[in-house]
C-alpha cells in the first residue's frame, strides 16, 4: 500500500518533535520537575496528567522557553531550547503554539486585534498585507465557530467563547506543535467536551502534534493517544487510556475514578 506520510512536511524533520531528557526545575527548595523524561512523536496527542501544583504548567513553560531549566535538555524540532538566542527562540515559537490556562486574551484589545497580534508582531512570519491578515483572522474565527465576535472585546464573551478565541489565536500562525495548558478547566462538562472535539478536529485539519495538560478525564478520553503521569516531578507512568485505566498502581488509579 503506497501511502504518503502526511505527517512529515519536510523529509529531514525528526520523527520525534519534542525530546525531553532528565529535566530538573526547582523554585528555592520546591523541586517541581525532578528528572523528567519524555518524547513526543509527530502527529501524536500526548496528555500530561497530574494533580494541581504538580508542575504541569511549569513543564510546558520550560518547553516554550518561558522558564529556564536548572538541568537537563529539551529539544524542540531539532533545536535545543536552552541554548537558543532570543531571535532563535522567536523562530521556534512560530512553530510551537501555546494555549494559556487563563486564555491570556489582551483585555485592552478587540478580538480582531488579539488575533492580529501574533501575525503582526512575529517578525519571522510578519504579514503586512491588510487583506491577507483579514482573511487569516476570519479563517481562524470561523474554525472555532465565532466569526461574529470579531469586533467585540474579550470582556464581552463567556468563558467558553474566550477559550475558543484563545484557541483561534494559537492556531493562527499554523504551528506544527501545540501546547495546551488545561484547555477545559473551568468550563462546564458540555462545553468542555465541545472544546475537546474542536481541538481534535483542528488537529486533524492542520496536522499538528500536541501536548495537552489536563486533569479533566473526559477531555483526556477524547483527545489522548498516550498519557503521561507527572507525579513527584517525574514521568511516573505512561500508556494509552485503556492501559492506565486498568493499572493496579494506586497513584495512577486515583485519576480514573
Amino acid at each position, binding site marked *: 500500500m503506497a501511502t504518503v506520510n502526511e505527517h512529515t512536511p519536510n523529509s529531514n524533520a525528526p520523527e520525534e518533535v519534542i525530546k525531553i531528557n532528565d529535566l530538573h526545575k526547582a523554585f528555592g527548595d520546591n523541586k517541581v520537575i525532578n528528572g523528567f523524561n519524555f518524547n513526543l512523536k509527530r502527529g501524536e496527542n500526548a496528555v500530561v496528567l497530574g494533580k494541581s501544583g504538580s508542575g504541569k504548567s511549569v513543564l510546558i*513553560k520550560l518547553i*516554550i522557553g*518561558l522558564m529556564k531549566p536548572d538541568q537537563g535538555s529539551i529539544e524542540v524540532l531539532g533545536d535545543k531550547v536552552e541554548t537558543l538566542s*532570543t531571535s532563535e527562540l*522567536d523562530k521556534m*515559537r*512560530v512553530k510551537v503554539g*501555546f494555549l*494559556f*490556562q*487563563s*486564555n*491570556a*486574551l*489582551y*483585555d*485592552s484589545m478587540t478580538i480582531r486585534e488579539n488575533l492580529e*497580534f*501574533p501575525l503582526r*508582531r*512575529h*517578525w*519571522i512570519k510578519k504579514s503586512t498585507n491588510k487583506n491577507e491578515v483579514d482573511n487569516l483572522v476570519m479563517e481562524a474565527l470561523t474554525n472555532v465557530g465565532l466569526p461574529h465576535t470579531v469586533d467585540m472585546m474579550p470582556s464581552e464573551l463567556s468563558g467558553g467563547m474566550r477559550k475558543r478565541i484563545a484557541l483561534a489565536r494559537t492556531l493562527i500562525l499554523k504551528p506544527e506543535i501545540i501546547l495546551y495548558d488545561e484547555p477545559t478547566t473551568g468550563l462546564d462538562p458540555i462545553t468542555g467536551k465541545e472544546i475537546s472535539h474542536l481541538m481534535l478536529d483542528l488537529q486533524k485539519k492542520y496536522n499538528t502534534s500536541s501536548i495537552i495538560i489536563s486533569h479533566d478525564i473526559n477531555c483526556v478520553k477524547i483527545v489522548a493517544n498516550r498519557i503521561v503521569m507527572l507525579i513527584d516531578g517525574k514521568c511516573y507512568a505512561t500508556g494509552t487510556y485503556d492501559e492506565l485505566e486498568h493499572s493496579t498502581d494506586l497513584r495512577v488509579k486515583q485519576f480514573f475514578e
Partner: protein
Amino acid sequence: MIKNIFIEIGLIARFTGRFFIEVFKPRFEFNEFLRQCFYIGNKSFPLVAITAFIMGLVITMQSRPTLVEFGAQAWLPKMISVSLVREIAPVITALICAGKIGSGIGAELGSMKVTEQIDAMDVSGTNPYKFLVVTRVMATTLMIPILAILADTISLYGGYLGCNIHGVVSWDLFWNQVFDTLVYADVLPSILKTFFFGFIIGIIGCYQGFNSSKGTEGVGQSANSAVVISSLLVFIIDLLAVQITDALNLN
C-alpha cells in the same frame, strides 16, 4: 524586615538597570509610546488642573495676612510665584500622577501578569519589557514635566484670582511681577526634577505590576504599593533636589 527592604531596593535597581539596556535596543514601539502619552495626558490633566488652580488660590489667600502685617502685600505675587513654581505645582502634579497613573500602571500590568498576558506577548515575538515597560516609563518621563508646566501656569492663574479677592492687582501688574521674580534658577531645576518624578512613577508602577503575585488580591496590592512607594520617592527626590540647588547656590 530591614533585610527585605534592601532586597526590594536591589530588585528595583536591577529592573531599572534593564530599562537603560532595553531603551537603546532597536524595534522602538513608537505607536504604543504615543498611545500611552495620550492616555496619561488625557487621564490626569483635569485633575492636575483643578488641584493646581485650588492650590494657587489657597496659598495666595493664606499668605496674604502675614504680608499685610508687614505692609508688604504688594509683594504677594512675588512670593507666591516662587513657592508655586518651585515647589507646589511640580510636587502636586507628581503626587496626583503617582495616585492616578502609577496605580493604573501597577493594576494594568499586574492583571496582565496574573492572567498570563505578559507570557502570551513573549511567545508572540514581542519583548514584553520593551512593549509594556519602556513605552510607559518613557511616556511618564515626558508627560509629567508637561503636566507640571501646565500646572505652574494654572496655579499662577489661581494666585492671580487670590490676589484680587481682597485687593486689586491688575492682570498686567501681576504677570510683570511674576516674570520679574522668576529667574532661570527657579524654573529650570523645578522642571528638571519633574523628569525624575515622571521616571520614578513609571518605573515603580511597572515594577510592581510585573512582580504581581497571583490572584486579584495581588493585583490590588501592586497598585497600592506603586502609589505608596512612588509618592515616597517623589518626596525623597524633592529633598535631594533642594540640597543640590542649595549647594549650587540657586535657592
